[in-house]
């Protein structure tokens, strides 16, 4: 499986929904699966407890959703624990784009660092979008970052994302490490000006 890299301007594929507000990262990946020193096995374990409960009828288990890469969610998705295991699990299952009413902040940042855009739209729009998606899971949806839209053959929805994240996906600079390392001299200057790293002088 290829993971996101470089500029992320278009994503297209099939979509499905996970419905409900305040879906926390403990549900996306239960704590027992954090016992690992590598992220590689997480894709299988995404939403493990919810899936277990629904015995094969969870959206992440349905045959028609295999290979889909766009997830439509509701409000405050990804709240709770900061575990990057949650977006890692979604990414390793195959998710490349998440659209919802709103996202928890740390989750949004973790997705950004992995190259998975999280975009928002109003409650009304998301409800409508979820309905369309659920009516026909085999249709292809096209996401266009520049237009900030997601569309099928007939309908198009306007989406939002904060400017910083937009630019990072657009330019491919969402993988921050190298950018941060460029500023060696400035980092050293910051250190020199911090009282607590200089005996409070």
């Amino acid at each position: 499986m290829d993971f996101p890299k470089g500029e992320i301007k278009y994503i297209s594929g099939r979509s499905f929904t996970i419905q409900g507000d305040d879906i926390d990262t403990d549900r996306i990946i239960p704590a027992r699966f954090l016992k690992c020193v590598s992220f590689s096995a997480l894709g299988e374990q995404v939403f493990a407890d919810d899936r277990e409960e629904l015995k094969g009828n969870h959206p992440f288990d349905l045959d028609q959703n295999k290979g889909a890469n766009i997830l439509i969610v509701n409000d405050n998705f990804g709240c709770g624990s900061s575990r990057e295991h949650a977006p890692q699990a979604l990414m390793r299952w195959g998710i490349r784009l998440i659209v919802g009413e709103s996202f928890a902040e740390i989750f949004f940042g973790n997705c950004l660092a992995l190259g998975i855009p999280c975009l928002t739209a109003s409650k009304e729009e998301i409800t409508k979008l979820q309905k369309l998606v659920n009516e026909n899971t085999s249709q292809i949806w096209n996401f266009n970052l520049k237009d900030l839209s997601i569309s099928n053959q007939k309908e198009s929805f306007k989406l939002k994302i904060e400017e910083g994240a937009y630019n990072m996906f657009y330019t491919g600079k969402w993988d921050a490490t190298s950018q941060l390392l460029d500023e060696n001299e400035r980092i050293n200057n910051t250190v020199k000006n911090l009282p607590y790293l200089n005996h409070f002088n």
Partner: protein
Amino acid sequence: MSSGTLYDKVWDFHQVKELPGGSTQLFVGLHLIHEVTSPQAFAALNEKKLEVKFPNLTVATVDHIVPTSNQQRPFSDPLAEEMLATLEKNCKSNGIKFHGIGSNSQGVVHVMAPELGLTQPGMTVACGDSHTSTHGAFGAIAFGIGTSQVRDVLASQSLAMKKLKVRRIWVDGSLQKGVYAKDLILHIIRLLGVKGGVGFAYEFAGPAIENLSMEGRMTICNMAIEGGARCGYINPDETTFKYLKGKEYSPKGKEWDKAISWWKSLVSDSEARFDDEIQLDGSSIEPTVTWGITPGQGISIKEKIPNPEILPKNEQQIAKDACKYMDLEPDKPIEGTSIDVCFIGSCTNGRLSDLEEASKVVKDQKVATGIRAFVVPGSQKVAKEAKQKGLDKIFLKAGFEWREPGCSMCLAMNPDKLEGRQISASSSNRNFKGRQGSANGRTLLMSPAMVAAAAINGKVTDVRDFLQD
């Protein structure tokens, strides 16, 4: 936009560069790591052939996976052992100080760092753990990060971050007897909602906050994230300085005086501008308990479980889910709800004063039949001091188990777990579905003293009944 707040001042000191697109490269003064969110970060660093830039600004401990009954190495769980061994190896090869098992300074990362004096006013503190907000109690900007950011901080001691707005939450009055910091923060989250703080840093201020001990302040800031605020902080004052004085990593001698004057200069100005301000009365708050599946679903001990039909529209669905999952009936009092397990511990309420308050309730009483109750001190130091005060004996005599320090049943990554549909009274911070180790286990969050009262009566109890005279 805010100005003149502690948040603004500390932010400015740590700003390395404005990045294109509105985020800032922010320097991290104290980086804390543990076994769960760091191994993949070190692996990524090695892959990129990068080194740890300032090994002396990263400090490690082990907390999430440690067993609390027998801490003999190797751990009986091979995965837990592998995680600890990996952390040890990474610290060793990168020159990072590790506070391991048997070091007297090991503990839940948000308990051990403050008690060593590592957390100080004016710092930026980052850790791959959402409850890093705890350290804001000292007047630091402290926030949780994901593993990719742990990698970035290791490599560059900095990360890309957007400046938050600042909301001041002013709490008047003083808390009644039997009402603790935990009740106050559960009440605030109930008022503002679990996502009310998204995009904000919370400044907690006002008489009721100033009256809190450092431990109480840590409880408040710890749960800022449960209200959606990535960081919460309290301006440093004499209580802060007194706590820090003489701690292992606190400034000493002449540096101490200079430190105090710098710390004082960081306090939010009297004419500081906030993006939002909220005021509430602390004296009207009652002991608070969660009944649902988010920390925002809290009510006072004297209230009834809300009827989803009469809640605001946007809360109805999650309230219905909660009633179903928790198997609690709307319109019934929460007081008297039977419980199975009692847990006192965690980075929210696993500190000495928490155990002391709980022990007052437990003293000369017995845990109700059929209830499993246990105390897990937040750190080796807490355990040691509690034993010196004889608290362990009080709990043991009453029928509690007394365990070794760790995260334990807060998230149940170690052998301490709920079983099946068990329902717990817990002093921890999250009541999410499945949080305490059983996919359908249930959690009621409350103060440690309330957990103690629940253990004695075998059901949710108003702790004030135990505190008369």
